[in-house]
């Protein structure tokens, strides 16, 4: 029982990381009906930026916000340079472009930082505390706390600020929003910037666990896909719940299902994607939207 609870908390921590990346995917999906295949690589590159900053002697708690701001700017630049020229292109074109972007960013990271895995500092110690007989590491608690904070910040921004309101309006009703003076194209760029920053948090949280290298996010993005699909790809709350469920499921499956073990955890992610898409394509929180033809 005690071990089970420890696995559960570990799952929630890793699930919080998935949730951040899934939330980034949902933000871009809502802005333009697109799954951003480059989201993981964008987060990876941002993590490298944080690494470089910390390596140059910047303190962790300053490097973190600086990185988020840089990621935000980077997301905007990417939208302006790469996505905007094809804004009205068919969805297949856009998907292929984000894939190209993923490949490009992966190569760039390898080009600049090399492929040797590096250890990334964590702000929280790996020591454990005893909570009612369950040993939980500060690191897990910290990751849960930071993820929770990010998700709360995004929620407040979207639901309780004017910028968030115009962002949502531009995403769902571009034509009507334009007639209300909303600068829709910039709102899309803002959405990309926001997604990049939120995704960056997941990269920075996962790097101490996985070691930092250009392919670090390749498995995390699959879990994030699973989380987003499970939650309903247009629902921010769904992304969070989906992320936590996927994290716990993967952790428990790895610990208790002998045939899964460590090496088939990723296959659990794939299985979640496929099962959800076949049984309930709208996910847990998605509305049964009319199928687009």
């Amino acid at each position: 029982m005690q071990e089970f609870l420890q696995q559960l908390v570990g799952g929630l921590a890793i699930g919080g990381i998935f949730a951040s990346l899934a939330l980034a995917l949902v933000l871009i999906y809502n802005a333009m009906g697109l799954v951003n295949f480059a989201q993981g690589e964008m987060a990876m590159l941002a993590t490298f930026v944080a690494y470089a900053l910390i390596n140059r002697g910047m303190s962790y708690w300053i490097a973190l916000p600086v990185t988020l701001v840089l990621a935000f700017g980077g997301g905007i630049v990417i939208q302006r340079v790469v996505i905007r020229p094809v804004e009205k292109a068919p969805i297949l074109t856009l998907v292929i472009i984000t894939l190209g972007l993923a490949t490009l960013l992966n190569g760039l990271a390898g080009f600049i930082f090399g492929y040797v895995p590096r250890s990334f500092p964590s702000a929280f110690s790996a020591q454990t505390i005893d909570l009612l007989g369950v040993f939980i590491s500060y690191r897990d608690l910290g990751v849960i706390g930071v993820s929770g904070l990010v998700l709360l910040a995004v929620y407040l921004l979207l639901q309780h600020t004017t910028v968030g309101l115009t962002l949502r309006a531009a995403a769902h009703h571009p034509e009507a929003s334009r007639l209300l003076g909303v600068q829709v194209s910039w709102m899309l760029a803002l959405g990309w910037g926001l997604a990049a920053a939120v995704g960056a948090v997941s990269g920075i949280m996962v790097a101490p666990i996985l070691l930092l290298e250009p392919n670090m996010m390749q498995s995390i993005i699959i879990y994030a896909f699973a989380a987003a699909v499970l939650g309903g790809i247009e629902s921010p709350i769904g992304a969070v719940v989906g992320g936590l469920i996927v994290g716990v499921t993967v952790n428990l499956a790895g610990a208790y299902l002998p045939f899964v073990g460590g090496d088939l955890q990723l296959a659990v992610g794939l299985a979640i994607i496929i099962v959800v898409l076949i049984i309930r394509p709208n996910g847990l929180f998605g509305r049964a939207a009319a199928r687009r033809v």
Partner: protein
Amino acid sequence: MLQRIRRAPPRYWLVGVVVLFFIGFPTVISSFLASEWAQALILAIAIMGLNILVGYSGQLSLGHGAFMALGAYTSAILAHRFKMDLVATIPIAGLLTGMVGFVFGIPALRLSALYLALATFALAVVTPSLIKRPAELTGGVQGIILTQPDPPAFAQSAYGFLTGTAMTSDQWIYYICLFCALILLWFAWNLVRHRPGRAMRAIRDGEVAAAASGVNIAGYKTLAFGISAFYAGIAGALFALAAGFVSPDTFPVSLSIQLLVGAVVGGLASIPGPLLGAVFAYFLPIESSQWVPNQSWIPDQIASTVKNAGPAVTYGAILILIMIFAPNGIVGLLHRGYVALNRRLRGAADRETGQMPPNPQTV
């Protein structure tokens, strides 16, 4: 007969010249280069299959590397565990993969284009770890090492008669790949010119309209998946043959990306496109990784990172640039150039006869 050949349109002449070129090619290049071109042909087969799925039926698969892996392992397991002749396993691998693809196409029907891309991408990422698991069957991380076949006597003597040198195993494998590529090319060409091709394009351009004109949407979409997977399966089996081994890491997600690059660069929904795209996608990383380390003025450290990261950077940049500036790929560019040139030439001729060139907007 002679009359027919003489009257054949220039397009057929071009096809003839290209085929002759590929047949004669190994006699003038080294055995090693022949094996590289065999790899490019294999890639071309897989890309042809992907092109039928993406270009003609409009379903985006980012997981075609997984189908190649299935074909390769089917062939390798049959040859290694069941002692079958490696060449004879190729059609079996193709058919099995095709069937799996067909079955895969049924749930894919329910998915939107985006979800399909997402699911197939996840499949491509997970494939290597799925292969490793049944280690008794697949050889686990080590994979399976295969013995490559020697050229049979008839090929030996024909080759010796023509060139006066002995045929190597690599050259024989090249011809097997060429043979498969030509047959599959011919098949694809017939497919898209006839009813199934028209139906698939109609579906791609609008399912509602296609259904209204009586096209069996579910049937053709799953058919496209099946055929496409069949091509990938053949390509995978040939890959096992040409490489002489299979292992989980020969089928990383970047293979699926490479296939997509080839399809997009060559030109989606075109028949010659995959050939051009394959040559490009296969030789670009090889050439760039050979060229850079050979330049003495580039420091070693930079050279080695370029060697590692170069292909990804160029692939990524090229995917983006092509999609933005030339969504129809090389074939689209060539076609545009040809039309422009033709108009130029005709325009010049028309000036002499005093006729107006055709209105550019109606061409």
